[in-house]
Each structure stands twice: as structure tokens, then as C-alpha cells.
């Protein structure tokens, strides 16, 4: 069953077509890589899926529901969680608070329970904290729980973004260049986490990377964007040998 479907998704900025009629169907439990040279429209496509950009044409369907009219925060509550190309951790908050922040339906996020400090809110907070520590444990950040996120390394910040996303129990996790700017060993760790979450929790992933070979080992399916349009979609080994794909990548590296 498809978890995400884009039908003719197009995004134009003035005269520039950044995403061009993309029809994509992602099945539940898939790990899909989305690659393409600089300016191919990968992040713009993510922004269309997650609602940060309203689409010019077409529609986005998540779990069978048209989500075009949902705000980004509503879409993420439906189970569609993303990370950003540049890590967007809350640097003036502690690592623990970064994770606790994303708890869903927290009564303490409404003004009356927050002011009255209701028992319901305090109990909920207790549960949230336990869950947050479990996640920090899992992503090996527990020693940094009380440090500010600004103190973390680039790789740890990527992990924190995944950990806090997990707090929302996503069905679909969209990772925007999770390997960018992290050391080699961290690349393997992040890939292992993705595999683990996919196998154990049947979580669906769409992963953006820039390089042609970067995702071949991780993903089962590779989609290539060029000038906003899909030019290849299929088995990674075949896609990276596709002539058109190679041509596009060569052209961009010559530029």
C-alpha cells in the first residue's frame, strides 16, 4: 500500500520551474533515495511534500488522504516528519529539551494546564521524559542530555534531529542530506539507524543525498531528479549505470 503519493506536483517560482510534474508513489516500509545534482529540486520537492511550499499544481497524498490544505505542523502530526539540510536543532535549548519538545498532544502545551501545573500535565511530562531518555539512549546522546545543542558536533546534531523526530512516532521520515558535513564513521551509524528503524518499526524513509553513489548501499530504490523532473526511478545499481543519469551528473561536475 502506498504511504505517499505525489500527483503531478509542480512548483514554480516566478518563471522558474523548480519541481516539474513529479508523480511518485512510495510504498509503506520502503527506503527510497532521492538524488540529483545541485539545484535539481530535491529540497524544494521535500518542502512541497511537507507543506512548507504550497504546490503550484498537483497534489500530495499521505496515507490515502489529500494533504494539500494541511499546514506543515498538521502534516507532521499526521506522521510525516522531516529533517533539514542544515541541522536545525534548537541550539539555545538542552539536548533533552530538544527531544521533549516534540512530544505530541502534551497537555502542558496549552496555557491553562501550563499555568495551573495540573497533575495531568505533570504526569504526561514524566512519561515524555522517560521516553526522551530512551531515545537519547538509543541514539547515544544520553551523556549530552543536559548540554545545550549548540555544543554538539555536526554528526550528533543529525542524530538529535532523528531522535527528536522519533518522539513523534513518524510513519514516514524524510531525511534531507543526513550525511552532509559528518565524519565517515557517523555516516555508517546514521545508515545503520535508518536500516534498524526500517526493519524493526517498519518506518518508511525518503533520503536526499547529493552524490550519485552515496545511497546505493542503503536504499532499495533510487529516484533521480534533474531540473525538477524525475529522470530515473528504480533499482539503485541500475539507476547509477543509467546513461542519462551519468550524463546529468557529468555535466554538473563539469560546470
Amino acid at each position, binding site marked *: 500500500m502506498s504511504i505517499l503519493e505525489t500527483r503531478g506536483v509542480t512548483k514554480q517560482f516566478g518563471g522558474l520551474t523548480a519541481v516539474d510534474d513529479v508523480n511518485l508513489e512510495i510504498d509503506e516500509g520502503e527506503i527510497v533515495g532521492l538524488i540529483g545534482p545541485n539545484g535539481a529540486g530535491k529540497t524544494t520537492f521535500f518542502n512541497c511534500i511537507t507543506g512548507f511550499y504550497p504546490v503550484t499544481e498537483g497534489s500530495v497524498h499521505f496515507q490515502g488522504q489529500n494533504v494539500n490544505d494541511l499546514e506543515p*505542523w498538521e502534516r507532521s502530526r499526521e506522521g510525516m516528519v522531516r529533517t533539514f539540510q542544515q541541522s536545525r536543532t534548537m541550539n539555545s535549548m538542552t539536548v533533552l529539551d530538544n527531544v521533549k519538545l516534540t512530544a505530541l498532544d502534551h497537555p502542558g*502545551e496549552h496555557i491553562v494546564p501550563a499555568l495551573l501545573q495540573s497533575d495531568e500535565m505533570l504526569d504526561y511530562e514524566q512519561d515524555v521524559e522517560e521516553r526522551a531518555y530512551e531515545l537519547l539512549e538509543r541514539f547515544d546522546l544520553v551523556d549530552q542530555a543536559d548540554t545545550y545543542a549548540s555544543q554538539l558536533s555536526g554528526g550528533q546534531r543529525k542524530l538529535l534531529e532523528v531522535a527528536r523526530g522519533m518522539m513523534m512516532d513518524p510513519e514516514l521520515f524524510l531525511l534531507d542530506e543526513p550525511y552532509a558535513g559528518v565524519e565517515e564513521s557517523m555516516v555508517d551509524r546514521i545508515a545503520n539507524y535508518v536500516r534498524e528503524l526500517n526493519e524493526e518499526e517498519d518506518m518508511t524513509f525518503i533520503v536526499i543525498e547529493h552524490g550519485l553513489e552515496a545511497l546505493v548501499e542503503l536504499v532499495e530504490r533510487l529516484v533521480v531528479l534533474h531540473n525538477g523532473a524525475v529522470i530515473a526511478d528504480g533499482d539503485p545499481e541500475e539507476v547509477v549505470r543509467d546513461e542519462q543519469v551519468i550524463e546529468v551528473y557529468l555535466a554538473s561536475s563539469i560546470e
Partner: protein
Amino acid sequence: MSAETPSVEGRQDRLLWIAGLVLVLLGLAVMMSGIAPGLSGPILIVIEVGIFFLLYALLVLPVNVQFGVSGLVNFGPVLWFGIGGYATAMLASTGSYQGQTFGLPWPFAVLVGVVLAVLVGLLLGVTTLQLRGDFLAVVTLASAEIFYGIVEKVGGFGGATGIGGVPRIFEAGSFPMTDVAVTFILAGIVVFVYALAQRITFSPYGRVLKAIRSDEDATEALGKPTFRYKILVFVYGAIIMGLAGSLLALYNGAVSPGFITLDVTVLVWIGMLIGGAGSNRGAVFGLAIVMGLQLFTRFANDAFPVSQSEFAALRLMIVGLLLVVIIRFRPSGIWGNPEEREVL
């Protein structure tokens, strides 16, 4: 595993509510007892500055939750102060030398003042909060100036004289005792508002506000309706600041443009920045430092052979110097947490 509780430290929180209640009761007791001892001039000056410190504390706390906690640059606290003050004064006044008055019961006048402040907060919020932070700063600053211009120039608001004849609800046995009673009651209210600000700041609600301060888009991506939070923070601030204006009118018996100048906004902001934006305690103590300095220099003037206006200029220079020193050596303010300061 050390874990910070979501609540404000329970014991301190409870003490605050008790202290606030005791202060308000003390004020009421002074009012009702009818005692009327005389007080010397300097003490009266101290009390008067103290009363304005308490009124402005009711501005600096919401501004700190808006800016220090949520990152929203509100350069117009005096706008809501003025709306609450003028609405209450005009509705409750039983006869002013100038301006339109209605002679309605004062509790109703306070209620309308707060509601108007909220409406203006909503209007400014809905139209500006979707824009970037600096636009909000300009719009709030300009709105406060426009309001000042309206009450000064447009008929019905009493011009430069303002609105008089407002019932002084804090009347005690004598004029000095009224001031003493007001001080106690306002101090109690400030303690209550401080306790509320602390609860917001350290609750999951405050966590969302801090996240918005840090990265609004990412907060939205994490399932938080950030726009709604920003609007509400504006509305809650409007309630407290409008109430502060109402209290000014009911204590003073009058309001005039002189009470709602840009100077009030500047004082509140300097106090907050010196004390440390983001820390409720810092904001209040910072304001106390700046106003204490003003008070001190008021007396110090006698010792210097310069005129009062020259001395006022000197006083501003001292405050300016203090601000420069703080920004240079401790940019997050005296009580501020350097790690929680967002580099804008």
C-alpha cells in the same frame, strides 16, 4: 540522571503565591485602617518611583516572555499600557476638565480596557506576526507613536492635559498612606504576574516558545502551530500590559500623554537587557537597577552645581554607559543565561 522538572521549583512557587497574597492583604489593611501618619518628602519620592517601578514591572514581564522567551521583538509595550490607561480613565471618569468621559463603574472600565488591549494585540499580531522579526519591531514602535499622537491631538482624549476625574480606588486615610497602600497592592500583583511568567517559562508551553525563539520553521516542522503560539503570546502580554495601564489610571486619578511616551518603552527594554532577557528575575531586577539609578541621581543632583535639565541629560548618559558596558562584557545581561541567548 539529573532531570529538570517541568514545573517551577515547587517551594519557591508556593512562596510566591503566599507572598503576593500577603502583600495585597497588607495594602488593603493600610487602606481600611485609616491611619494617617505624615511621611517626609524624600520617602515620598522613593515610594512614588517605587510605584512606577511596579507598574513598569507589569510591562517588563510580558515583554520578557515575548522577547526573552519567544523571540518576538515588541517595541511597543507602552501602546498597551496607554490603551488600558486611557480606556479605563475615559470610561470611569466622573468628569474631566477636558476630553470625553462616561462615568461608568471602574471594574467595567478595567474590563473594557483589557479587552481593547487584547483586540489591538490580536490585530497587530495577525497582520504582522507572519512577517519577520524586525518588521514586528517597526510596527509595534510605530503603533505606539501613532497612539500617542492620537490621544494628544484628536479631540475627546483630553489633549496634552489628558483625562482627569478618574476614581482613585486605592484611597487611604491620607495622601501618603494611599501611596503606601498602592505600593503593597501593586507589589502583590507583580509577584503574582512574576509567578505566572515563571510557570509559563518553565512549562512545556514555554519549551515551545523557546523553540520558536530558536528556529520557527523547525518548530513548525515538529508539529507545533507556531503562528497560533505567537498570537497568543501577544494576547497574554496585552492583558497584563493593559491591566497595568488601568492600574495607573485608578491610582493616579488621571492619565495624560506624558505617561505613555516612548521613554517608557525604552526604560523597559533597557531594564530587561541589563538584567538579562529570557530571565524573568533578570528583567525585573534590571528594571530595578535602572530606576534605582534614576532615583539615586535625583537625590544626587543636590550635590552637583548643575541645573535639573543638565542633570537629566547626565543621568541618561550614565544609563547609556551602563548598557554599553553590559553589552560589551556580558551580552546576555546580569542574570541572563549566555547559552540561551540567540545570536540574532
